[in-house]
């Protein structure tokens, strides 16, 4: 038996966006599909609205909306008749016209699914997941293929649904999405959840933070390869030459650290070709936890 997920434990609350964050193949979709009742699990327990999703009846399914990673929409269908058909499966669906307006589906309502762009398919799949007015919404990689305008629209809607009390569980490998949308994040790696917390809590993780610093930043600069920067910055600032000539210094950087580095550059007649200073991001946390190796 192939074990894809073993050691994931998570709770998603109403009125919150809970994100499962992980690299491709980490086990996010498998976790989600077990929670939706789409895959049989060989062990463990799952409670969805107080019931086991593997034995879900129509009553439970009517309270849950699902947007699959591959859409799951028939290629020959046209958006509005398809949404009307799905709406008919519920006692009190979301009015299809409202949903079509809300997600900008009207502009491609007469186009078959097979001819829609990736972003249009995503919006239609989201509408199909929402048309039953669910209490719990599962979104598998919701921003895949979305153009910037569609992404803004979808993110605004997710925020409104969360504020209206819907429990939203989404998977993503895009750190920006999780940082922007999620109230609570589980980082999944190798089929296990390896870290969890609010975005702020996760940003506070790391060696420098544990040493007592409040704000971790990364200074990145490009200069000639092979510089020996030892002793320029304190030991709790991690200095790396990530590629030949590309350096990062990560830690609780202060103005005096920047001044010391600039002084050292001046003393050695070094003028960096490029330089950025960034606050620690969720991506930094993710790479710290799961490593930088390609899986």
């Amino acid at each position, binding site marked *: 038996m192939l074990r894809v997920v073993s050691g994931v434990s998570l709770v998603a609350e109403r009125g919150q966006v809970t994100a499962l964050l992980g690299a491709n193949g980490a086990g996010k979709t498998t976790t989600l599909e077990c929670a939706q009742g789409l895959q049989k699990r060989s062990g463990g327990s799952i409670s969805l609205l107080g019931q086991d999703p593997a034995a879900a009846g129509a009553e439970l399914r009517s309270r849950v909306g699902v947007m699959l990673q591959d859409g799951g929409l*028939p290629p020959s269908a046209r958006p509005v008749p398809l949404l009307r*058909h799905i709406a008919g499966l519920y006692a*009190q669906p979301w009015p299809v016209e409202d949903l079509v307006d809300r997600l900008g589906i009207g502009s491609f309502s007469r186009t078959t699914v097979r001819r829609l762009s990736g972003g249009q398919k995503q919006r239609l799949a989201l509408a199909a997941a929402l048309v039953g*007015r669910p*209490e719990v919404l599962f979104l598998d990689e919701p921003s895949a293929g979305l153009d910037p305008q*569609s992404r803004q629209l979808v993110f605004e809607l997710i925020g409104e649904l969360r504020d*209206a009390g819907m429990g939203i569980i989404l998977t993503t490998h895009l750190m920006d999405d999780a940082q922007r949308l999620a109230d609570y994040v589980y980082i999944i790696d190798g089929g296990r959840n390896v870290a969890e917390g609010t975005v702020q809590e996760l940003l506070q993780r790391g060696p420098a933070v544990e040493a007592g610093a409040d704000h971790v930043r990364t200074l990145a600069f490009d200069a000639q390869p092979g510089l020996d920067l030892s002793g320029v910055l304190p030991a709790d600032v991690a200095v790396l030459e990530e590629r030949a000539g590309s350096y990062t210094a990560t830690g609780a950087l202060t103005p005096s650290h920047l001044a010391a580095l600039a002084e050292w550059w001046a003393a050695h007649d070094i003028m960096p070709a490029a330089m950025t200073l960034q606050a620690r991001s969720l991506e930094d946390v993710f790479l710290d936890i799961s490593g930088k190796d390609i899986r």
Partner: protein
Amino acid sequence: MNRSSAGAAAAVPVSPGAPGGQQPAPLFRRILLQGKYEALAMLRNGEQLILAVVLPLLALVGLTVTPFLDGLGASRIDVAVPGILALCAMSTAFTGQGIATGFDRRYGVLRFLSTTPLGRGGLIAGKVLSVLVVLCLQVAVVAAVGLALGWQPTAAGWVPGLLLLALGAAAFTALGLLVAGTVRPEATLAITNLLWILLGALGGIVIPAERLPAAAQQIVGFLPSGALGEALRDAFLHGAVNGAATLILVLWTILAGAAAIRWFKWN
């Protein structure tokens, strides 16, 4: 979508269901809706219409102008129509439904619909309903053309004939789902089309066993195609129920249905 349309859309308020407030539509309505949706999809598909209506009608005309069926009944058309009705059941329930289900599986449609109140059971029930609806239309068209060509079925044959046609459709639906649920859709396409041609020509469905090569005569009676063809000819030619053929169809339905339940992969 442009920025102005996104801005206008924001006026529509969001309205998730109240906790515990959402309910599914009644079971009967869900199955009826799915059956209607699938039947319309099937009828709008040009290739499916060719397979379901055009080819059976061409075969019907072909059998009335050639001597293959001479001596088996009062007229060629009387022998031909029951076989063509059986061919219609195989077209729709096995080949058409199998291919559609195979591609629905490929595109994740089965997985998505199984997360809605329809569920897996409702989805299968909807597919069976759509097969029956399309089959009713096929019967109407073939019977009308047959009557126009001089078909004179035994009056007592209609009830057992139509019931046996439904039983044959059940057997072929189970076989179609078994193929669609276990192999890739491209393989489903190849297998179901190939079997349609082979069984149509040599499976005892439109050409009775006694007119087939000796080697084929020994086995066609045990195939669902041969059993359905024989059962329908006995019903419409003689008003009789062929017990052996009926039993074979029941066995195919049970075995293929059980195998489909056991091995059908939704992913």
